């Protein structure tokens, strides 16, 4: 640790979130939790949309009968919601497989849908909001038409939205269908083509790995990590995104980041995609919140140019806004300021100034924030 004085927010998570982090880090210890402690932990988990994940960890480590009935019921509720999302994800994939047939792949599942299809251990208890599928750009029009013919529709149908997504983004507007509880987001890349980071999309596809027993693929392990990294650190404003950081922690552990060779391969891959700075920032955050093994080494080894977008100021602000607060703000004003600054940062990163100005002129920055920031309401479920 450095000798320089650190503000509380530089040191990591606010105190109000620490009971949740403690339960996640050491689920076995929850066997001795008093009900008053559960009364704090469960609402925090729910608000962070991590109740199912917490439940999975607790039930793996603690005999159910040792937990108070009320606690069991809430943990069960978390698992039930997660099971619903998992089932609906698998059903959506089952339904679209025949529609994708004949269109050149690889068909690559991103993020939550990928973790579920691979049945990764850390996918249990997660609450994916939609199914993200990346297909080659040349297949996109055909697949889109196939879906429309099969009864799928665009959720947002205004001409401006359609134009925005198609011209500037790496994804189509979300698609929905009767009988499908999940949305389908079709991508041809993992980041908007006009942003400051330009991943090597050809390599994303070329190195994608098939999922055993499925027609679908996922990104290679390093790319999965990097996608999760930019999804949080570049493509979001951090607000209420603790679950995304937890995914990064899980993916780091899976590599594992603590292994020298794996770590160097990850750094190399980050260089290929121009993602060294986001990776460096993600490692700092993961270390601070989850004590992820290997992060210290990565932070030390990474030869990363300083940048105001990825530096200590950002770490401090992210620390303030990542977690659920459940009304226990340390300081309302500083968190609110951090939110605004991080939102501005996220727009700046994703669009060159001329495009930002165009959008601001067309629709106002407010609606831009709604369109571009897929901020999930942390208050629901």
């Amino acid at each position: 640790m450095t000798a320089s004085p650190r503000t509380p927010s530089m040191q990591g998570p606010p105190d109000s979130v620490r009971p949740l982090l403690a339960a996640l880090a050491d689920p076995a210890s929850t066997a001795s939790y008093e009900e008053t402690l559960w009364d704090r932990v469960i609402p925090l988990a729910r608000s962070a949309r991590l109740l199912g994940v917490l439940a999975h960890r607790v039930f793996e480590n603690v005999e159910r009968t040792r937990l108070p009935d009320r606690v069991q019921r809430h943990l069960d509720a978390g698992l039930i919601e997660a099971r619903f999302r998992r089932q609906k994800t698998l059903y959506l994939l089952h339904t679209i497989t025949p529609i994708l047939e004949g269109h050149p792949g690889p068909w690559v599942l991103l993020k939550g849908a990928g973790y579920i299809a691979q049945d990764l251990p850390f996918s249990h208890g997660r609450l994916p909001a939609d199914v993200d599928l990346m297909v080659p750009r040349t297949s996109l029009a055909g697949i889109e038409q196939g879906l429309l013919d099969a009864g799928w529709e665009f959720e947002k149908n205004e001409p401006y939205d359609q134009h925005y997504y198609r011209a500037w983004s790496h994804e189509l507007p979300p698609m929905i269908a009767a009988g499908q509880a999940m949305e389908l987001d079709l991508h041809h890349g993992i980041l908007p083509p006009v942003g400051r980071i330009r991943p090597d999309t050809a390599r994303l596809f070329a190195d994608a790995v098939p999922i055993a027993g499925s027609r679908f693929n996922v990104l290679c392990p390093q790319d999965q990590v990097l996608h999760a990294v930019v999804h949080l650190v570049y493509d979001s404003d951090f607000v209420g995104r603790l679950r995304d950081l937890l995914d990064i922690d899980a993916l780091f552990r899976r590599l594992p980041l603590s292994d020298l060779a794996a770590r160097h391969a990850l750094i190399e891959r980050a260089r290929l995609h121009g993602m060294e700075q986001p990776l460096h920032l993600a490692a700092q955050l993961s270390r601070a919140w989850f004590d992820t093994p290997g992060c210290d080494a990565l932070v030390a080894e990474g030869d990363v140019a300083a940048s105001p977008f990825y530096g200590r100021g950002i770490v401090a602000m992210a620390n303030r806004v990542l977690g659920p607060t459940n009304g226990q703000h340390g300081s309302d004003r500083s968190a609110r300021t951090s939110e605004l600054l991080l939102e501005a940062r996220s727009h700046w990163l994703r669009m060159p100034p001329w495009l930002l100005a165009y959008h601001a002129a067309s629709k106002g920055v407010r609606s831009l924030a709604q369109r571009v920031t897929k901020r999930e309401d942390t208050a629901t479920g």
Partner: protein
Amino acid sequence: MPDFAEPPGLRFAVIDQVRVLEFEDEAVVFNPLSWDAHLLNPAAIAVLELLLEAPRSEDEIAAFLTEALQPDEQSQASAYAQRLINELQTLGLVRLGESTASANR
């Protein structure tokens, strides 16, 4: 039951882990993939139960239905079988091909 000696071609099978709740005339069936529940009429239930015992071809299903129909309707058995199979397929309860179907009553 007729003896199905000759090897049939394609066979229809019920998907795994279907749940069936039987009431007097109708049944409510749970589709474990979509999580939808469907009301089935007696003819559809009968075909579903036949397929739960073992996968069958369309001809076998038609032969089964022939037994249940009145003499003047028996020529319709084939068309009827086709319709019911289509219905069950559309609902996603039945698919073409082998499966180790297990059902829960």
